[in-house]
């Protein structure tokens, strides 16, 4: 093990032994083979991205662990655990406040409206232009998230590698970006060929391994220190508190982190993170999605908080009991690797590092898969539809889309690597992630949230939020003094001003634009009526659009004095509101029915396509046999349908009876006309292929609605 020390931190190199590297390589091969096996369950882009809406709650709940733990990584929480103690757990235990909105608002809407991406919701709810802007913002968000994942992976592996290596007589330095590029290539492989089902199953395995490895590290660390009592007594009281100080210090304070993570981050994670949303969409029903989300937040996140932060706590105790072994100046982002290496024997250290890096790769994979879904749904498909005007339909088109999805995964991985450049200069991954959340989530958070819960919210308001709100956010980036009134007394760090509390300012300005523009709808309509009464109304509208684009660019490049920029933003917001009202045809009834929380019954009705049957029936076991034809209906006996309280046209879920499979072998279909053979369901070949049913294996049948 080697160390280098600069003025601030001690950094480590060449940690670990060859045994550790062998264990890591074996672990990676096993995980990749495991993931590749499930690639066979992708028969379409629907399967590739969404896993075919088939899984049980427990499978999704455990597979989310690796996604959540990976993204809110070992590296960043161990760093804050080392610097500030148990308060590193804060961000894992502040998501409940928005769970009613998610479980009974957004989750049923995304399932029942069958939307495949968040921007698609914006088109249905508002307009194609709102979808276009949402796609741009969301792609920035997702690619930035991938970048944060790569940065964390790079920082996790760097301490294990030497500072340089020799190849053909030439010395090569091992840089952070070099490591990240290598990781990106490896990461791209199984996501490109696996798809969502592969990701779900590798995450399931990795979630379990991750929890085990995290607790193993805690156990080894506490034992190394001489028992829990010694560990507990070594830590100062302020390190044991579960929440940080209200306003001190600027790089870790409660108020800033509450608004950045507890509000913007929680809404962003639950409502905007396509990776997570796609997991819930892969559950077999809305109720099953609710169970997965609830179980994850109530039980898995608190456990994960201990798993990801404990290396920092152990490191702190070690830095007090043995400062020569772990100097207090140890680089916080390296503390996880340093502690794991000290407390674990060779091989076990390799296993812990493999679990960490593999889980981080899972997170990045999930995000790449999700971003590719946005690309296919919101960029590729609209362009192809426009160019080909429906020339090719069916399986041929789906095959081409699957290929496009795989290629887009490769390009998104590359963009993710490039985005690391924006974050790598922050002192820790935690601050980089905090700044990222505070800056990129607020406009989309406000737009999605008000879109779902406020019927009056209009297309002109959402687009003004995306343009005027973002312009005000840019103003706050250039002049952080604007954020001071929102800072609750948090001191401004001039190098990275208000990394967290800027979330409150950004949410406020976006929310204010959204509300003010919505309440001035009548004024906008009157102005538009006056414009339309002119003979040159089209030229006026295009002229106003040009003016708003020019003003937005001037603000983006910080041209002009502050007060002029502020006035320009007001002008932009007014112009955008008016021209959106002019250009967008909006039906406030048709475009809110089934798309807001106020009309979920309609969404459910549209999902089924006929009257909802909510009668509770039995879940029965049946054998299956094959029939000819392609019609998507399954035929049960009269008696079996009576047991399930099902009628012809109701929806049914058929699943292999082996519970351990978690719904992997299952299919959704519709009840057809009954027959008289009890205990038998008649299916077509497509059902058998989609459900991957095995001859002779019984199925359970459950009426959905």
């Amino acid at each position, binding site marked *: 093990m080697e160390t280098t020390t600069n003025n601030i931190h001690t950094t480590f190199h060449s940690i670990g032994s060859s045994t550790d590297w062998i264990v890591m390589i074996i672990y990676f091969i096993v995980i990749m083979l495991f993931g590749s096996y499930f690639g066979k369950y992708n028969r379409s882009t629907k399967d590739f991205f969404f896993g075919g809406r088939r899984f049980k709650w427990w499978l999704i709940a455990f597979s989310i662990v690796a996604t959540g733990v990976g993204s809110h990584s070992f590296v960043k929480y161990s760093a804050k655990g080392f610097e500030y103690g148990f308060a590193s757990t804060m961000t894992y235990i502040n998501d409940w406040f928005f*769970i009613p909105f998610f479980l009974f*608002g957004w989750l049923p809407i995304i399932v029942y409206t069958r939307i495949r991406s968040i921007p698609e919701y914006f088109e249905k709810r508002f307009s194609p232009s709102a979808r276009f802007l949402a796609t741009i913002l969301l792609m920035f968000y997702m690619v930035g998230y991938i970048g944060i994942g790569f940065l964390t992976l790079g920082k996790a592996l760097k301490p294990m590698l030497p500072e340089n290596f020799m190849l053909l007589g030439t010395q090569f330095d091992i840089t952070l970006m070099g490591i990240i590029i290598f990781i990106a290539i490896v990461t791209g492989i199984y996501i490109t060929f696996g798809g969502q089902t592969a990701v779900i199953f590798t995450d399931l395995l990795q979630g379990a391994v991750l929890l085990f490895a995290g607790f193993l590290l805690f156990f080894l660390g506490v034992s190394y220190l001489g028992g829990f009592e010694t560990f507990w007594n070594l830590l100062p009281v302020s390190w044991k*508190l579960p929440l*940080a100080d*209200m306003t001190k210090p600027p790089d870790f304070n409660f108020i800033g982190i509450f608004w950045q993570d*507890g509000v913007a981050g929680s809404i962003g994670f639950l409502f905007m993170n396509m990776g997570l949303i796609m997991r819930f969409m892969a559950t077999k029903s809305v109720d099953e999605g609710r169970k997965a989300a609830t179980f994850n937040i109530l039980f898995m996140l608190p456990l994960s908080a201990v798993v990801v932060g404990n290396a920092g706590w152990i490191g702190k105790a070690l830095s007090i009991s043995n400062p020569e072994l772990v100097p207090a100046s140890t680089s916080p982002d390296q503390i996880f690797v340093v502690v794991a290496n000290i407390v674990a024997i060779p091989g076990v250290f390799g296993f812990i590092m493999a679990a960490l890096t593999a889980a981080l790769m899972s997170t990045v994979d999930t995000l790449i898969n999700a971003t590719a879904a946005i690309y296919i749904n919101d960029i590729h498909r609209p362009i192809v539809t426009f160019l080909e005007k429906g020339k090719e339909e069916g399986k041929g088109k789906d095959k081409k889309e699957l290929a496009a999805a795989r290629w887009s995964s490769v390009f998104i991985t590359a963009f993710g690597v490039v985005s690391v450049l924006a974050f790598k200069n922050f002192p820790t991954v935690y601050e980089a992630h905090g700044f990222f959340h505070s800056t990129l989530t607020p406009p989309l958070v406000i737009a999605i949230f008000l879109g779902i819960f406020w019927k009056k919210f209009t297309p002109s308001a959402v687009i003004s939020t995306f343009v005027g709100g973002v312009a005000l956010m840019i103003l706050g980036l250039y002049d952080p003094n604007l954020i001071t009134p929102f800072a609750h007394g948090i001191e401004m760090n001039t190098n990275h001003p208000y990394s967290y509390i800027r979330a409150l300012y950004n949410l406020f300005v976006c929310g204010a634009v959204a509300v003010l523009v919505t309440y001035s709808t009548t004024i906008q309509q009157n102005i538009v009526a006056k414009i339309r009464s002119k003979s040159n109304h089209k030229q006026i509208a295009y002229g106003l659009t040009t003016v708003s684009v020019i003003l937005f660019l001037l603000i983006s490049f910080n041209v002009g004095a502050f007060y002029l920029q502020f006035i320009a933003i007001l002008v932009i917001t007014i112009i955008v509101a008016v021209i959106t009202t002019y250009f967008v045809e909006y039906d406030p009834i048709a475009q809110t029915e089934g798309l807001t929380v106020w009309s979920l019954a309609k969404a459910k009705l549209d999902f089924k396509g006929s009257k909802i049957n909510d009668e509770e029936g039995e879940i029965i076991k049946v054998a299956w046999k094959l029939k000819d034809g392609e019609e998507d209906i399954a035929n049960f006996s009269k008696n079996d349908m009576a047991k399930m309280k099902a009628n012809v046209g109701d929806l049914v879920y058929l699943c292999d009876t082996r519970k351990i499979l978690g719904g992997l072998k299952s299919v959704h279909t519709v009840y057809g006309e009954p027959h008289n053979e009890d205990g038998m369901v008649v299916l077509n070949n497509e059902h058998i292929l989609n459900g991957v049913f095995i001859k002779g294996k019984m199925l359970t049948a459950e009426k959905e609605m």
Partner: protein
Amino acid sequence: MPEISHTWLPFLYLYGVGGVFFLIGMIIIRKSNAIDLKKKRHRYWYRVLILGYFYFLAFHAIFTLIALYW
């Protein structure tokens, strides 16, 4: 002993301001009938939501007390 700005003030802020968001959510899902308390399953979820809020509140309160006095 740490200052109150590091002990109970963040706790009160978290469950006060967070509690306002939670309450607004509960009111909206009830008023919109997204959660229909006539349905047995929805009554179960309603109880889970309320218990969840107090579960986390108790969690932070207990751990603050342990940090201060144990």
